[in-house]
């Protein structure tokens, strides 16, 4: 058989249930892949060799005794390092949490373990999930497997890179402004952000509480569905967790797009879009039309202000969420003559420049005399964005955009220009503001061989519809390219 590290979850699930493959073998293949690729792409911060091995053996025992917990059993999955794992170092890619071993598991971690998944390790991210390239990590930049001179995207860059090379069959990332979808697009894999509230945030180190959502990064749309089913559902530990009845997310997945109205958001398909990305997007629109969908051009005027609103709301919330990192109870501590000095020194040393930038921005946006003009105003824009989406979904079933205006940019290309970096999230941010779900599906590559992603957005809780269109896009694109791996067979 082909290398097990190249299997999808669906394929691995079949193989694990036959005599072809054991979970231990699958993990070994994935770990070999990691050994082969890590020097090039640095996707991981921590690999939990012992823990993963024990989980794999437990999965095999479970299979043998007829205890089948579902499609994720025995599947090696990586976790972005902003999800707390009991006893396993969790850093959020920051110096301020260097060596921190959480005393508890995030809910998604518990659910994955209960489903029999094998947690391989923790992946690299932009520090505290703030960034679009992983260059803000305090532990080095991850590299795009398609071209190591380029970024994998961010902030879930490590997770996307790992799935792209097969050093995990799936990974969890977190998406606040596009941090699952954009790196998935840049790395040629599938990345999905659920409806806000579908997946518990308990144990996710908070960046912006009203925007953060955990989502799966996988090789296929069907795999993303399987992971979402494993991690979603009401959690009493998260007061913002959705309490209603959940739709069957996969109920429409194979129905195709015949008769569906697909809306193209004019504001999100033009500005700053690279020609290749634009061309790929239009090609996919034609294919969808050919498959029976009606394409409609729609205008969502408030999306022009969405980026600005986001870069006030997210920093404001993060300025409060990151206040707890003060050296008192956990993490880094630098000494000082007074408590204030100790806190100040600790935070100045522990936080990287982008994090500091956003804390200052957020504090300013909330401060007396400025609240109305900045944070207050941004929240009003947010309401307009929500209203625009509601109106759009009265005219179309789903909305589509390129996931990212560009393909992967070079390492160092945008680090001196934060605003240029922020523009990476232009197409993804509006759905974080609205709380609606979105998914990125790889459809092709540009002339430099860099992947291009197609984004499908749907109304809140319309995941079934979203997966349906995404599957159709995946089938129509027929994208099965893989990044070339470093040739070090001998080292394996």
């Amino acid at each position, binding site marked *: 058989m082909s290398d097990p590290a190249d299997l999808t979850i669906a394929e691995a699930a079949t193989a694990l249930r036959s005599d072809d493959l054991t979970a231990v073998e699958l993990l070994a293949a994935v770990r070999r892949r990691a050994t082969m690729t890590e020097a090039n792409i640095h996707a991981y911060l921590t690999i939990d060799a012992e823990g993963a091995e024990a989980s794999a053996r437990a999965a095999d025992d479970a299979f043998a005794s007829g205890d089948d917990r579902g499609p994720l059993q025995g599947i090696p999955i990586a976790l972005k390092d902003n*999800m*707390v794992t009991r006893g396993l170092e*969790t850093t*959020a890619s920051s110096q301020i*949490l260097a060596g*921190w071993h*959480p*005393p*508890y598991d*995030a809910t998604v971690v518990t659910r994955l373990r209960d489903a029999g998944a094998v947690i391989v390790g923790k992946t690299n991210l932009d520090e505290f999930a703030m960034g679009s390239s992983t260059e803000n990590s305090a532990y080095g930049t991850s590299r795009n497997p398609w071209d190591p001179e380029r970024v994998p995207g961010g902030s879930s860059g490590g997770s996307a890179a790992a799935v792209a090379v097969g050093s995990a069959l799936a990974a969890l990332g977190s998406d606040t402004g596009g941090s699952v979808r954009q790196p998935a697009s840049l790395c040629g894999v599938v990345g999905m952000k659920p409806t806000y509230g579908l997946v518990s*945030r*308990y*144990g*996710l*180190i*908070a960046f*912006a*509480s*009203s925007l953060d959502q955990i989502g799966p990064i996988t090789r296929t749309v069907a795999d993303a569905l399987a992971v979402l089913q494993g991690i979603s559902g009401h959690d*009493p*530990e*998260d*007061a*913002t967790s959705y309490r209603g009845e959940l739709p069957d997310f996969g109920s429409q997945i194979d129905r195709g797009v015949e008769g569906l109205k697909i809306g193209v958001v004019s504001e999100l398909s033009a500005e700053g879009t690279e020609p290749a990305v634009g061309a790929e997007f239009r090609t996919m629109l034609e294919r969808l039309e050919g498959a029976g969908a009606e394409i409609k051009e729609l205008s969502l005027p408030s999306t022009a202000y969405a980026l600005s609103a986001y870069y006030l709301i997210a920093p*404001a*919330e993060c*300025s*409060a969420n990151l*206040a*707890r*990192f*003060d050296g*008192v*109870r*956990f993490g880094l501590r630098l000494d000082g003559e007074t*408590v*204030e000095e100790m*806190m100040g020194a600790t935070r100045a040393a522990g936080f990287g420049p982008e994090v500091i930038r956003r804390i200052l921005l957020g*504090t300013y946006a*909330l*401060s*007396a005399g400025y*609240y109305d003009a900045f*944070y207050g105003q941004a929240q009003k824009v947010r309401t307009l964005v929500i209203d625009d989406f509601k109106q759009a979904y009265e005219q179309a079933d789903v909305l589509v955009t390129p996931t990212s205006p560009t393909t992967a940019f070079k390492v160092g290309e945008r680090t001196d220009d934060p605003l240029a970096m922020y523009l990476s999230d232009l197409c993804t941010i509006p759905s974080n503001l609205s709380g609606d779900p979105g998914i990125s599906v790889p459809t092709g590559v540009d002339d430099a061989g860099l992947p291009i992603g197609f984004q499908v957005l749907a109304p809140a809780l319309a995941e079934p519809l979203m997966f349906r269109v995404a599957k159709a896009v995946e089938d129509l694109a027929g994208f099965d390219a893989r990044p070339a791996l470093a040739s070090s067979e001998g080292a394996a």
Partner: protein
Amino acid sequence: MTWEVVIGIETHVELRTHSKMFCGCPVGFGAEPNTAVCPVCLGLPGALPVPNEKAIEWTMRLGLALDCDITEHSLFHRKNYFYADMPKNYQISQFDLPLCVGGHLDVTTSAGDRRIGITRVHLEEDTGKSTHLGEGGRIGSSGGALVDFNRAGIPLMEVVSEPDIRTPEEARVYAQELRSVILALGVSDARLEEGSMRFDANISLRPEGATELGVKVEVKNMNSLRSLQRALTFEIERQTKILDGGGTIAQETRHWDEEAGRTEAGRSKEEASDYRYFSEPDLVPLEVTEDIIAGLRSDLPELPAQTRTRFEAAGVDAIAARVLVGGGLVSLLDEAVGSGATAAEAAKWLTGEVTAYLNREGSDPAALPLDGGALAELIAMVEAGDLSSTAAKQVLEGVLGGEGGPRDVAESRDLIQIRDEGALAEAVASVVAAHPEEMARIAEGDGKLIGFLVGQVMQATGGKADPRRVSELIRESS
């Protein structure tokens, strides 16, 4: 110049719910430091708050008891400031949409009745507790602080009064009455010495007749009702002196020093007055329906003012009624009356001997081995003549000390009065025989000596003779 005193009081009340405001940790007092904690109340990365429904209900109950309006769409807000005992360096509190607004509390002082307005009652979480190490000595590593997070996250109600209070006495009575209401509702232990009820006062002076408020001084660290009154009295003097001398009052926070009997300006730390409030994104808005409000209102227990009125109607005098209600002795009295005692008589014992005992021992009325039935029994024994009033006091002491019920204690301590006619006659006869001169003088009309002879009989009988009957018998013998 006559100065009008304007006082407002902010009261923080720890709710004694089973668990904390936003997590399942137990609410208690005196546990080993940092043992009643979890990721949520420690503010660990990734932790999230989940609101305590009981705490919200109890806050609304207090609002209703204070005649407030309940806000139908209420929000929690983040109040942002850095401090070592703040796990998240923001406190989840309420800002412009508190649970309860616009009520009042009626108080009675020596100057008469007054209605004190209540601006709002809101709900928030308490902070941890810092213990500062060794003051003084800047050399080396002296100084530092220990922080205990057991208290962090305990539900805290904040009651803000309108600046309607005009005298230190009124302030104390307001605080007392508020405490009585809280005790009647059963939502807090309201123990000032334990910190489950804390007061801050804002006080300013203005020329009599003026409408604008003067410069406000905040006074903190008043750990008893008495210090509340003393601190405000001191502040009035201090501010009057300054203003009379033509000076201006500094707007500041001052701390009351109970030992020194004065307020001191607080350490000048940067007052973070900009809390950058924004609505708490980890919590959904509270929706309170009319039905919920109606249900809570109909479930309200009898409130202190109603209890006092009821006691007075039953024959208890006003001051005793106030002591009973303020001292947590209401159920004891009701029980005693239920077991046959009169309200007035039960009140006498409760406000007298029992209150004295409670003050001496620093005990909690709820923890007493005495119940209303026992008190009624004691009173009945006195009325029946089985116990003299002196003996009864001793019996009560025994009951409070856990020796048993009144009759058991009376018997085991041999305090039951002798009422048997034969025994009394015998005792009287011996004393009469031993004091012929005194008897002769009594016969001539010297009534005072009867007392002396009664005393002799009491001595001879170990204090158990019924003194009234003995006195009668002596007269008859003369």
